């Protein structure tokens, strides 16, 4: 049992220990910067995991919600002059509320129809932000000033780390709570869940609102860290990125979103040296990963572990 626990938590504790001291083990400022972004994006990917991995609804609107969170924060601090933390909380709540409205419309549809509805929504949000100069600052974007405390990169790193852990905690709790059971039921067999007394639309909307809230949170952190906001923060290509991160890491797994985001984002950042051809190489790697690890890195490792453990058990049994 202890060996089992060690496997379960050992990796996590080791990773957490490294994470706690990361800024002081001599990594470059640039590296730290990249890691902060990866952390922020992994929150967004986790948010996608809740709606897509656990509830089975592939949303291509996470980019839009990331953007709504970020713009919400910017507008509330710059235009309404709200206190930063108040604005951040409010921005996330607004994002969740928009999620509710969109969910009410979009969850009338299913499967590929839902995917396309969310994609359209993202497209609309992007175009509106780009053109609605008065509110969003249009293409020129706007500046965001965070609290003095988080002016330094290290401080922002710990802030993001804290929120990554919080999001991870939420995801972990959901995955093993009664609410999470409902999510899984909806993902795996809607008609049966319905017949078993689970309110499908309500469940989906709850999952979607949590997901949107967290995507909005990621957007706020992204805006804070960049210190500046432009319509690309709501682009649908962001949604595509999150899906790529999630599938490379492993949808429906606890650590998949983080592993996927860090792997892909860091790899692309380091491949910048290659210049032009990096997307070609990345594209090929992406295809190979999806073909050979259809359930993502974490999913693949899990089944590998099962095989190893299985054969070990068989040996012991013999």
């Amino acid at each position: 049992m202890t060996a089992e626990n060690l496997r379960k938590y050992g990796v996590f504790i080791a990773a957490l220990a490294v994470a706690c001291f990361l800024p002081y083990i001599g990594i470059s400022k640039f590296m730290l910067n990249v890691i902060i972004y990866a952390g922020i994006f992994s929150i967004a990917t986790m948010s996608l995991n809740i709606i897509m991995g656990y509830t089975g609804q592939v949303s291509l609107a996470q980019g839009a919600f990331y953007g709504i969170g970020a713009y919400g924060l910017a507008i509330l601090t710059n235009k309404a002059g709200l206190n930063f933390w108040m604005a951040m909380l409010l921005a996330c709540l607004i994002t969740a509320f928009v999620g509710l409205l969109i969910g009410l419309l979009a969850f009338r549809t299913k499967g590929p129809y839902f995917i396309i509805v969310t994609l359209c929504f993202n497209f609309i949000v992007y175009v509106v932000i780009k053109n609605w100069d008065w509110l969003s600052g249009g293409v020129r974007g706007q500046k965001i000033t965070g609290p003095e405390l988080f002016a330094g990169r290290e401080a922002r790193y710990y802030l993001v780390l804290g929120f990554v852990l919080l999001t991870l905690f939420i995801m972990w709790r959901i995955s093993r709570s009664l609410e999470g059971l409902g999510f899984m039921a909806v993902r795996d067999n809607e008609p049966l869940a319905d017949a078993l007394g689970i309110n499908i639309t309500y469940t989906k909307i709850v999952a979607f609102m949590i997901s949107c809230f967290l995507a909005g949170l990621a957007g706020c952190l992204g805006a804070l860290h960049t210190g500046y906001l432009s319509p690309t923060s709501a682009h649908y290509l962001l949604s595509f990125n999150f899906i790529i991160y999630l599938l490379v890491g492993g949808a429906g797994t606890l650590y998949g979103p983080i592993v996927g985001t860090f792997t892909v984002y860091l790899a692309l950042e380091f491949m910048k040296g290659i210049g032009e051809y990096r997307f070609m190489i990345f594209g090929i790697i992406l295809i190979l990963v999806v073909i050979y690890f259809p359930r993502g890195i974490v999913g693949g490792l899990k089944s590998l572990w099962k095989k190893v453990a299985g054969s070990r058990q068989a040996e012991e049994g013999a």
Partner: protein
Amino acid sequence: MLLKIESLTKRFGGLVAVDGIDMKVEAGSIVGIVGPNGAGKTTLFNLMSGQLKPTSGRITFEGVDITGSKPFRIARLGMGRTFQNTSLFDRLPLKINMAIARRMRTQSGFFDSLVPLREREEEADVARRAGEALEFVGLAGSAESIAGSLPQIAKKRLAVGMALVGEPKLVLLDEPTGGVGAGDISGMIELICQIKDRGVAVCVIEHKMRMVMGLSDRIVVLNFGRKIACGTPEEVSGDPEVIKAYLGSGYSA
């Protein structure tokens, strides 16, 4: 009266799948529903449990009008069901299947999962109930197995267990022994009797006549969406119209 159906009708385009049916189910009784293929039996179930909305007619469950209600509401009122093509959460373990089926009797929401105070208790309760239900349907030994990998008979039993774990007052079983080996049928019959012993009413669709005759307190016979006979097994099996439409002259009770 537990369930009361009044002149229930369902049309699909030109086809009348269920045609003005009146029917009652008494608490704690077993009602068999038989009829040729395409007679409208499954459609009738789908209307009762809310999967389909009736074209006309009325359904009352414990005095509550549930005509046109959503399936999950009807399930929460206390009507469980199984499907003709056994439907399970194929990728999940049995105990999780059971827990999901019990979910509708719990209150915990998202915030409870973050601060698990009430949730703790409910989770324990769910686990206990799930264990009991698995025990009841004879699957306690394979709580950890994946539902999709079970043999047919175990799938059927699991489905019945899931219909029961939410403490319904009525369960609808659509061909609970379809595809089940001859050797395993008696076990299923026993299980259905035990359900009745718990005071839960059962509606069962079956083509295995001997089984239906043995089990049911009352039998309803459908043909072309209409009720052509209704009564005790003896009454029904003697009915010439039933023999002609469904049983065939070769049948002897």
